[in-house]
């Protein structure tokens, strides 16, 4: 069958949409539609009190949002503290984990004995199931029988209450997260580094560039896309953290290490809190969106095409 020019252009127009249709439908059903539903539901308070199950929810406008940003409200107090923790947690895991991954990648990118073993050792934590790894760490952090305190005691320190001290516990969760993810980031950096041609370094050496100059003017600009990708996934990972908290004290004591998604999870089972849970989810989605967009804008600026 021969198609007319017009038919051909129509096919040409539709073809890309047909090709992405399967994915698009899934995204619409499982991502976009629930997101809109969440926005809608965040404007309602579920029926409360006796025989609540049979009664319709009540439209309250932005009251759920006002409540979760009200420090004296039972959910607001928890939410605000958790929001602050989440920002600190994301900043710390990205600010420490990503440079650490980059540094290990730079070290492992040179030839050295037992290279494969080192790479494996650094990458290994990211192969472990998260909940298992976090459970192991919960023993490491245990007050009386843990490895961390046993080591501290050998140098005469009385030991720390890693998961019980409200000023320390978020830091403990950050440690586990970095240990878990730095190796994963390292793999991306390593792949990026190995894509950079050796010729460029040789040429720059001939021009008299030292290692530091090479890193700043060659490696970093050429790794920019990898860095963008790693930073974006590191941020999204940080906002998705749930399993570690389950094993490491459930966000306690008194929410001092709680994170947003886990707070949402903790509150879905009681009907009365569904409005708050939806409102919190919107804030969470908004935060991830802002972080991701600003990363793209920041890194994509002046991108040579």
């Amino acid at each position, binding site marked *: 069958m021969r198609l007319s020019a017009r038919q051909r252009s129509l096919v040409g127009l539709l073809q890309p949409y047909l090709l992405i249709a399967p994915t698009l439908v899934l995204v619409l059903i499982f991502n976009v539609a629930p997101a809109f539903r969440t926005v809608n539901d965040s404007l309602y308070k579920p029926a*409360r*009190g*006796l*025989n*609540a*199950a*049979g009664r319709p929810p009540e439209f309250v406008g932005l009251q759920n949002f006002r409540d979760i940003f009200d420090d*004296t*409200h*039972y959910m607001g*107090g*928890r939410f605000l503290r958790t929001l602050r923790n989440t920002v600190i947690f994301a900043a710390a895991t990205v600010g420490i984990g990503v440079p650490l991954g980059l540094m290990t990648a730079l070290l492992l990118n040179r030839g050295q004995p037992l290279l494969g073993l080192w790479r494996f050792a650094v990458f290994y934590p990211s192969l472990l199931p998260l909940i298992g790894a976090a459970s192991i760490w*919960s023993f490491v952090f*245990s*007050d*009386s*029988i843990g490895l961390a305190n046993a080591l501290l005691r050998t140098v005469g320190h009385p030991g720390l*209450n890693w*998961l*019980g*001290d*409200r000023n320390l516990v978020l830091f403990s969760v950050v440690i586990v997260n970095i240990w878990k993810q730095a190796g994963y980031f390292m793999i991306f950096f390593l792949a990026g580094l190995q894509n950079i041609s050796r010729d460029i370094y040789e040429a720059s050496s001939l021009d008299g560039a030292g290692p530091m100059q090479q890193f700043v003017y060659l490696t970093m600009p050429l790794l920019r896309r990898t860095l963008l990708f790693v930073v974006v996934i590191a941020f999204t990972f940080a906002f998705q953290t749930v399993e570690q908290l389950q094993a490491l*004290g*459930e*966000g*306690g*004591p*008194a*929410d*001092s290490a709680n994170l947003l998604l886990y707070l949402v999870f*903790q*509150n*879905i*089972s*009681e*009907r*009365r*809190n569904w409005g708050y849970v939806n409102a919190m989810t919107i804030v969470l989605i908004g935060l991830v969106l802002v972080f991701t967009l600003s990363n793209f804008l920041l890194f994509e600026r002046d991108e040579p095409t």
Partner: protein
Amino acid sequence: MALRRVIYVLLAAALLMTFGVTYAQDDIVIDFYFPSATANDAEGIFERYAGLFEEENPGVVVNPIFTGSYTDTRNTILTELQGGGAGPDVAVMLSIDLYSFAEEGYIIPAQGFIDAMDNGADYVNDFFPALMANGVDEMGNVWAIPFQRSTPILYYNADLLTEAGYDSPPTNNAELVEIAQALTTDERDGLLVPVAGGFPIWMYQSFAIAYGQNIVSDDPTEVYFNTPEAVAAVEFVRSLGTDLGVGPAGGAAWGDTPVAFLAGQAAMIYHTTGNLTRILNDADFEVGVWYLPSGPAGDDGAGYGAPTGGGNLYIFDDGSKSAEELDAIWRWVMFLSSPEIQADWGATTGYIAANASAWETEPLASLAQEHPQYGIARDQLQHVGKEFSSYATITIQGIINGTLESILTGESEDAQAAMDAAQEQIDGILAEYR
């Protein structure tokens, strides 16, 4: 070709096996959801019970389904029912889940079945009253039947106490502090109370009761969290890790506590009876067990107190089940709560068998004779109080846990002020139910 044929046969066999558990057309199938909070082989035990029950009840098939922790079980059931699924017919859930599920209209009272029994009163009266408290509403209707129940008790390292010149365990808070201080060394805590880690309310309730005021009553719209007794109780718990110096500041973690005790790093601990069997089996020293020491409410022992804990049997029906189905479901509940099964369950797991006659039934009767520690846990039941439960239980429990944690970790120095603020939030929620 031969290989391909083998593969087809295997595939067919696998398919048949998936459908192999077919029921006769007119069999009544009971879906039974259960959590496990201990290291016991609960799945194996329930398969065995289901087999025994099916032998006695032809035409009824019990389908035991393991659903994770208590929290997982509750969330699984809520997700299924809220999404329009069938959910379980019978489930073991926390005894404090009563009002959440009754409020949603998912469960039905057991009272109707009990009223229809010839000896309903005898059946109910055989359960220890303390274990019934959380399963009964304010009108006196029985909703849930005790099944895997526990209560906190005092475990002590008898060898260490004897070494330090104490022949008997502490019976009141003053003795508790004295012995704990005498047994505290650089390497050992004198007393660990597991109030760190998200769920301090249960252990805290022991102290509130010992100080003379349980934080909960028979009225699910009343909570007493800022009374002088409630405040004094939390201040005492906090002082164990600060001024008195017999344990870590902020309290011990739940899972660490028995481990530290077994390793000789804690002389005395508060912990659940659910760990009794494990501790007796694993300790290489003489393990003593006693009532939780009494507080100021009665130094002579009248101030003894602990909350109950653990799970009850709940019956699910949205009104669609036939009389035959409900009859089979009730027979399964009665089977699980019978003295024979409770005696077996208690002896296998360490949970407190819930009815008095189970303690005169083998194998529990001999076990309690051999290890008097089991009997002490049972005898303490005469002093225990209701576990915290109200309308909006989970939310209010969350408020209480958060407040206790902030006081115990020293974040809120002024316990009274923190508890007043919490009580105000709680009353705001409960006002919707009054």
